[in-house]
């Protein structure tokens, strides 16, 4: 479970996140929408413990992030917009390296299986990452999330720049993880993916949650229209 209680972050005189209350339960996919500068990435950074909150708290699976950032990070998986990997390592070596950093140890077969589950074939897994496309690097990021077995997944623009097929595969994977009771927070500009995958969608404007829609509401309404209305309000 992932929770924000009155979470606030200021940068000098600008309030980036303003008393955010948010709760993502196990099995939920929460789509966090908002224009550039709305505070989406700042919220993700607060959950990652890369920033200290000025008010309120971020909690990952019962661990207060500000009090124990390293402990909280061990309970989550994170896939950024650009999955940055070591180009001199192969895909499987990168997976092994990053898993080990989180204290996880896997046999070579397990690593290949994880990459295959994420959609990266064995032949590609043995190639140096320097030769990978963005979609392939994203798949290594997904395999890494699978390898951690985390119950919380933070995604920051995960489908940005992916082709439709890769984006579709990614959605399928998210849904599988949700079925495995993973709580997923996805900051995105991709209204289509948010509507397709999210069980709840929140619109963040000026660091505040301006609106929130359930799956049922999303099925009945046009998300793009709702989003634009909120922006103009």
């Amino acid at each position: 479970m992932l929770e924000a209680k009155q979470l606030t972050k200021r940068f000098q005189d600008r309030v980036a996140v303003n008393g955010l209350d948010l709760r993502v339960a196990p099995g939920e996919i929460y789509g966090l929408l908002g224009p550039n500068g709305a505070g989406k990435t700042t919220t993700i950074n607060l959950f990652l413990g890369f920033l200290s909150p000025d008010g309120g708290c971020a909690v990952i699976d019962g661990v207060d992030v500000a009090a124990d950032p390293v402990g909280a990070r061990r309970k989550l998986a994170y896939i950024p917009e650009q999955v940055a990997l070591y180009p001199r390592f192969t895909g499987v070596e990168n997976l092994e390296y990053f898993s080990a950093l989180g204290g996880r140890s896997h046999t070579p077969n397990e690593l290949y299986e994880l990459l295959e589950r994420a959609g990266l074939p064995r032949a590609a897994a043995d190639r140096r990452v320097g030769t990978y496309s963005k979609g392939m690097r994203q798949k290594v990021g997904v395999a890494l999330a699978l390898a951690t077995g985390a119950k919380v997944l933070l995604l920051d623009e995960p489908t940005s720049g992916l082709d439709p097929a890769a984006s579709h595969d990614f959605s399928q994977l998210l849904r599988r993880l949700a079925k495995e009771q993973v709580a997923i927070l996805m900051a995105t500009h991709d209204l289509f993916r948010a509507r397709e995958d999210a069980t709840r969608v929140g619109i963040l404007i000026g660091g505040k949650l301006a609106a929130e829609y359930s799956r049922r509401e999303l099925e009945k309404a046009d998300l793009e229209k709702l989003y634009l209305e909120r922006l103009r309000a």
Partner: protein
Amino acid sequence: MKLFARELRLLLRDRAAWALVLLFAGVLAYALWNGADLARRQRDTARAIEQSTAAFDKQVREVLGVQAIDPRQLARQPLTASFTPAPLPLLASGQADLAPMHESVSLFRLEQPSDARVEIENPSRLLAGRFDLAFVLVWLFPLFLLALAYDLIAGDRESGTLRMVLARGVAPWKWIAVRAIARGAPVLALALAATLLSGWSADAAVGARLAFACAVVLAYGLFWLAVAALVNGFAKSAASAASAAGAAWVGIVLVIPTWLNVLVESLHPMPSRAELVASARQAAGDAERRGSELLSSFYKDHPEWMPPGMQADFMQQLLAQQDEVGRAIDPVRERFAAELRDQQSMVETWRFLSPAIATHEALTDLAGTGYWRTEAFRAQVAAFKQRVEDFYAPRIHGNKPITKDDLAALPRFTFAEEPDAAWQGRVLASIAGKLGLVMLVLLIALRRISARVLAVSSA
């Protein structure tokens, strides 16, 4: 340990890293070869002196077995005070390429030539000396270390892998520490191996000296890895980290030692060498002119040496002149010695301004080619000269022949090494000082990195 192995594998995937490691191995091998050449020459010289001294001893023994010898005849033969070869000459040539390996001591020799031959300068000047192992370890080893470790996290910050790494829940300090050690490991291992190899052809038991030398090199290496960590705490990109690391090297290895050298020489300037030689010549000329007057005055000071009937010969006059010359140039020599002592004392006090100075001092000390052992040799040679004079002068003035009963008392020089505890104390202080600096730099680096990680990761 697994994290270390992974970091090492990551490093060794870089061809440039291999090139650097191979280049460093080559440089070390050349330095050892260079040092071996010096060590061989020292050993050969010492052996030749030992043989000629033994031959001379044997000859004297044989002659004294059958007849007494006029002390004037024996005193004319110069005696050689041989400096025992350094315990670890391959490690550092230090003052060995300036200070003589032996001194010729004779009763009939005016004072200035031997002292004028000896280069009594500040040891820190020797930082720019021969291409020996100490030169490579003090000057080039940090460069190679920094070349491999300058972008501990700066590159990751640029590429975005820093966020990926930190999101894994690894403690930043642990990851950076393991990475720094892994990046430095190949160069550090080569430096330690070369240090151990410097004891390869050593004659004496040098185990303790080698262990101390390894500790000195390790502490110096850790200092530079801590500098790399500090640089990464400030640098925003790999390029700025490289520039900052280069600036740190120039400052610590080049600028501070040069600045300290200038400061030391300004505050404690050595008297002019020309003044020493000129005053000795003038004293010798005066003494010659004053001739018999000087001898009378000498016998007033030493009535016990006055020959029966006061019939002084040439050698007795020469001894009296030499005594006068010594007296005339003693103040100049003492000024040299005092300034040298003050210079060394100042270097000792301020050496931790630059760990390069402290490391060079420690390595030359361990090699047996540093200030302290060379100074001990000079002091023992001076004492030996006095012993030679004390032995021959009364016999020459008293016209007393040397017999076989004097055989055991004939002056012979044997260099006495200082007790191990003396050099161990100095080197331990050097290691402790460097480790203190490591802790200080690490403390600043870790504070900076923690703050930096949070600030930059949020970008």
